[in-house]
Every structure is written in structure tokens, then in C-alpha cells.
């Protein structure tokens, strides 16, 4: 089963499927607010959730469908 990790940010929920992350760093480079980073194992993690502006760039940049940005209603 794929585990989904949910991270609350001020404007959205960042859903992350760590198992699908291949550690390419594209989302980290794309994020304008440095919300994301790679952990020691080279998998994506949310480091500064409160800075997230819910722009969705990480979601559309990730080639592995590992991030989903669900904007607050």
C-alpha cells in the first residue's frame, strides 16, 4: 500500500507519497519559498510548511506524482 503523508500549511495540504519520490530535487528547485528539501535518504520532506503559498509548482514539476497540493476551501 502507498502511504500518504499529509502536511498542513496555511493555504493547503501537501500530500506526499514518499515511496514514489526518486529524490530528483526538481520540486526543491522549483519551490519559490524553500518549503521542501530532501532528507538524509534522498526523499522529499516538508521543512518550512508555514512559508508555503500553495502555488502548486512542486506538484506540476514532480515527474513521479509524489506531491499533491490540495488548496484550502
Amino acid at each position, binding site marked *: 500500500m502507498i502511504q500518504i503523508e499529509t502536511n498542513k500549511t496555511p493555504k493547503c495540504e501537501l500530500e506526499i507519497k514518499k515511496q514514489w519520490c526518486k529524490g530528483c530535487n526538481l520540486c526543491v*528547485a522549483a519551490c519559490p519559498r524553500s518549503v521542501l528539501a530532501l532528507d538524509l535518504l534522498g526523499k522529499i520532506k516538508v521543512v518550512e510548511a508555514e512559508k508555503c503559498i500553495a502555488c502548486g509548482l512542486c506538484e506540476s514539476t514532480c515527474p513521479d506524482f509524489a506531491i499533491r497540493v490540495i488548496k484550502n476551501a
Partner: protein
Amino acid sequence: MSFDVMDYFRQETLPHIWCPGCGNGIILRDFAVALERLNYPRDEVVIVSGIGCSSRAAGYLNFDTVHTTHGRALPFATGIKLANPNLKVFVIMGDGDSSAIGGNHLIHAARRNIDLTAIIFNNNIYGMTGGQFSPLTPRDKKATTAPYGMIEQSFDICRLAEGAGATYVGRATTYHNQLLTQLIIDGAQNPGFSLIEAVTHCPTSYGRRNGMASPSDMVRWQKDNAVWIDKVRAGKAEVKDGQFTIGLLHRHEAPEFTQAYMEVIKRARGQE
């Protein structure tokens, strides 16, 4: 962006086989977004692909899908479309697949103006076989079969398609996501042969050999070298050596093949 692209995938087939940072997944996602917006009845959509890393895209999508033989996706798609013109047929091909081994089929599908939407995943290299040059590898770039640099002239596949008769031609990159999605939508709605070149990046077989070590270097390269066609046409930008245009590059109207064949049926039945 609240819908879940996963809705369009055969999730049991994921994660996909592509390398870390490979641009193919980005295009695939943009394609799924385009399908969501196009909102065709899902059972009427058929996705056909050739052989190559990029062509594995078809199998991940939850539609009727065909992974054909190297270079031959278009004639397979032609048979499907002509046999049942109600189907919405998309064709996914790599740059080598579509322009080398499948080059003849490409020009003839364009010439017939058959209602297919072709998406070319252009990573400038043969990815699946490990980095040999393709007809779209730029001059002087390195490949395993051009270890001293590419000496052949490369194709501009968009101009090739236009010259052969395609009625809708556009280009975007994996960096220019929204443009890519829009081109796929408009291309699908064009009643005729549409070709969308998606410039993508193959960090494994192309980037490493050509001074772009990381996927983000490659995406930056796309960002820096893509020039919007509208700006060029308005005289606000120029295309320097090594750069390329993006946007809707060409469009014209012409009779579509399967519709024209309906007229043949009428004539043969003496109805006209």
C-alpha cells in the same frame, strides 16, 4: 488544481520505470490534466505509443492503450481511427521513434491530415537504448554513437510536420507546463493531424554527457532557451543560435482524412 491526476492512471502500474528526474512524468501529468479538461467520454479515448522510454507512458494511463512497435505508432493509430472515427486517438512517441524509424509514417500521417493528436517527447536522444544520437540531437552534442559530437544536421520536427501538411503544430517544454497542457487540448480539438512537441529532459542519457548534470540544470536550460513565438512575431524577441520557439507555431484548415473517406462511402453508394 483540486482534481487528482491519479484518477487517470492505472495506479497498480506505478511507480513508473523512468529515471529520477526524467521529464517524461511531467509531460504525462500535463497530458492527464489536458484529458481532464477535454472531458471526453473516457471509453472513447485511445492512446497509442511506439517504443522507447517515452512510449511506456501509454501503459500507465487508464484508457484503451496500445504500446506498438518502434516507429510504427502512427500507422497503428491510423487503422484505429479510420476503423472507428468516433474514437479520440492520441499518439505518444519519442524523438527517435517519430523522426528516425517512424519518420516516413510521420510525414504521411501529416499529409493525410488524419485526426490524430501526436505528442512527441523530445529528449534529444535515444533514452531507452542508453544515449545514442537521434535525428533531433543538436549539432556538436555528445551521444554514445557520437562520442566526438554530433556532425549531422538535426530536424526541427515542428517545421517537418508543418511542411508535410499537419494542420496544428505547437511546442512547449516540461518547464512550460501550462502551455503544454493548453497545446494538447487545442491540438485534440483540431479536426486533423496535430503535432505537439514536448521538449523534455533525459538526465541519464543526455544531460550527463552534455554538461547538465542535474535534472534542474536541464529544466533551467529549457527555461533559458525557449522563446515565445508570439514575442518573436511581435518583434519583441529573437531566436538566438541554439534556442527554439514555443507556443502555437502553425495552424491551417484542410480536409480531414476520415471525414473525406465518408464522402467516398457516399459516392460508392451512389448517394452523390
